[in-house]
């Protein structure tokens, strides 16, 4: 009874919200943001681009957390290493001409390298700790992340490098807004990858095994699922997605040894926002964090230097108000 009442209250609130949004006409919308409409749309597009990158990274966090219940602190470093490998291959191939085929080849090589790295790290640093203290894998992951970022600084140098575009990145004007080819690529590729990941997880045998393992790892192994294999697969997919996100970041910004740390943290926040362990949640959370960041700078006049602070404040707020996130399940405490 109480449950139904609760649902009714939520429903009426949603109806009210829709009414308010419906009654808003163009002028009201402008007043809401205190900006002209085309600028609002422009910022939304920019926010979605950044958010799509966060989503791709957040998927890795959320998939690993779903199965192993651990935060893979080294995820940002998988991203960085994959990006560097792509960059090296792309830079050496680019001399023969700006061929988009070489670009795709470079990105795929980076993804494969990142996936191999992820599987290796899991085997070496996380697997021996699966049965030990709760803090152990977390500390080990922090250790791995420090090793990898310093290794990259040693091998590739601390100077930041640019990932050149395979196409000319002059913006295309559509209606009132301008979109760069890079933004189109990021949004299209992210949608494509997320669509196939969802299909993979929901429709294939391996995906089913993954879902079973994240439900209950011990029971899954009793049912004859190769749990170690599934965990390796999860790390491989997560790291490969992170590598492609890293390439997108490297084209827009720069490639440097600590690029994974901040991006990884924000993606983690996105994963928590959407409900950690939930794949759709990670996608939605990433885009919302991207939008919040863009609009935080524009509307509230937060200085660019404090942009990163917005996400952390959001994180602390979510953790206080709704620790399970938007779409997360409530975990029962076992005695």
């Amino acid at each position, binding site marked *: 009874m109480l449950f139904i009442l609760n649902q009714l209250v939520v429903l009426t609130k949603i109806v009210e919200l829709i009414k308010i949004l419906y009654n808003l006409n163009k002028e009201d919308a402008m007043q809401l943001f205190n900006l002209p409409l085309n600028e609002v749309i422009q910022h939304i597009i920019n926010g979605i681009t950044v958010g799509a990158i966060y989503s791709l990274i957040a998927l890795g966090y959320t998939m690993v957390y779903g199965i192993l219940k*651990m*935060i893979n602190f080294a995820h940002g470093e998988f991203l960085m290493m994959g990006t560097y490998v792509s960059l090296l291959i792309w830079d050496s191939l680019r001399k023969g001409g700006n061929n988009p085929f070489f670009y795709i080849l470079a990105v795929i090589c980076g993804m494969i390298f990142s996936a191999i790295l992820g599987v290796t790290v899991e085997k070496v*640093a996380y697997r*021996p*700790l699966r049965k*030990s*203290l*709760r*803090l*152990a*894998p*977390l*500390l*080990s992951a*922090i*250790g*791995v*992340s*420090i*090793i990898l970022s*310093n*290794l990259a*600084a*040693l091998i590739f140098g601390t100077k930041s490098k640019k990932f050149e575009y395979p196409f000319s990145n002059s913006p295309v004007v559509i209606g009132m807004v301008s979109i760069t080819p890079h933004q189109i690529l990021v949004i299209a590729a992210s949608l494509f990858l997320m669509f196939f990941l969802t299909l993979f997880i929901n429709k294939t045998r391996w995906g089913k095994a993954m879902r079973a393992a994240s439900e209950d790892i011990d029971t899954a192994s009793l049912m004859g699922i190769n749990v170690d294999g599934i965990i390796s697969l999860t790390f491989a997919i997560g790291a490969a997605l992170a590598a492609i996100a890293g390439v997108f970041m490297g084209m827009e910004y720069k490639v440097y040894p600590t690029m994974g*740390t901040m991006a990884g*943290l924000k993606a*983690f*926040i996105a994963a*928590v926002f959407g409900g950690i362990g939930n794949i759709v949640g990670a996608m939605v959370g990433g885009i919302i964090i991207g939008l919040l960041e863009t609009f935080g700078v524009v509307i509230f006049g937060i*200085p660019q*230097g*404090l942009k*990163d*602070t917005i*996400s*952390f*404040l959001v*994180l*602390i707020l979510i*953790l*206080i108000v709704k*620790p399970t996130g938007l779409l997360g399940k409530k975990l029962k*405490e076992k*005695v």
Partner: protein
Amino acid sequence: MTNFLLLLIIYIGIYSILSLSQNLITGFTGLLSICHAAFFAIGAYTTAIYLVHTNGSFWIALLLSALISTLSGFLIGLPSLRLRGDYLAIATLGFGEIVKNLIINLDSITRGPMGINNIPSPKIFGFVFNPAVKLNYVVFVWIFVFITFFTLKRIVHSRFGRALEAIREDEIAASTMGINIVLYKVVSFTVGAFFAGIAGSLWAVYNQSVAPQTFDFILSVMVLCMVVLGGMGNNLGSIIGAAIIVTTSELPRLLGFSNIFPPQINQMVFGLLLVLVMIYRPQGILTRKRVDFEKLLSKKIKMEGKS
């Protein structure tokens, strides 16, 4: 050479205070917090700003540092300590980044990335402590280390400390025993922040300058590494851990190899240490001393059998 050894001893002392306080939070209460650099920074900057602007007494600066650090520990602790272990780690990490970001961006107070220089040397009982005379500082810093060590020892062996250990072992069981988990966690966190603030204050007056680069994420990890290496839940272990980590990180400079070994190698060693210790000796160098009830019980049974 002697000068360098003395410098090493001073650094070990300051880091020992940090690792001891981290040990109370992580080793005894079982909370993985990675924002000790933030408390350290708050302590150091408070002392620096106070001494530069007022040229006042060192004791007031020390007290202010400790209090503001405690307050910030309370503010971050209150919301985030309702969270489970790994969420707490991320929330504290976020807090550490926020503090560093604020220090870099609040130019008018902290002078941004340049940091604050020319902090006056403390005058204590009419005696000026000059950083050039290192021996004075060795005594001065290590007095604080001993104060921290014995205070924490008393805390850990009190009723309060036992409650903390109960929370570490099993939160649900502890709460059914009537322990107010959130309260105890917050108090443990704020006590840790208090001592980290003191360490920051000492750091500021010894170095005579503070800069935001010092208080990086890697510093928090280093402190955590000290605790883990020495053995979580062992105070003496924390000091030993601090000694090992500080010595290894300063050794290349001591031997004149700093040109050959870039600083990255050092940090990689910390990372490697964390992973290896976790895999091969998760209890650290010195293990946690615990009362062995089975032994006590069997002794008692034997004694009763005799009588």
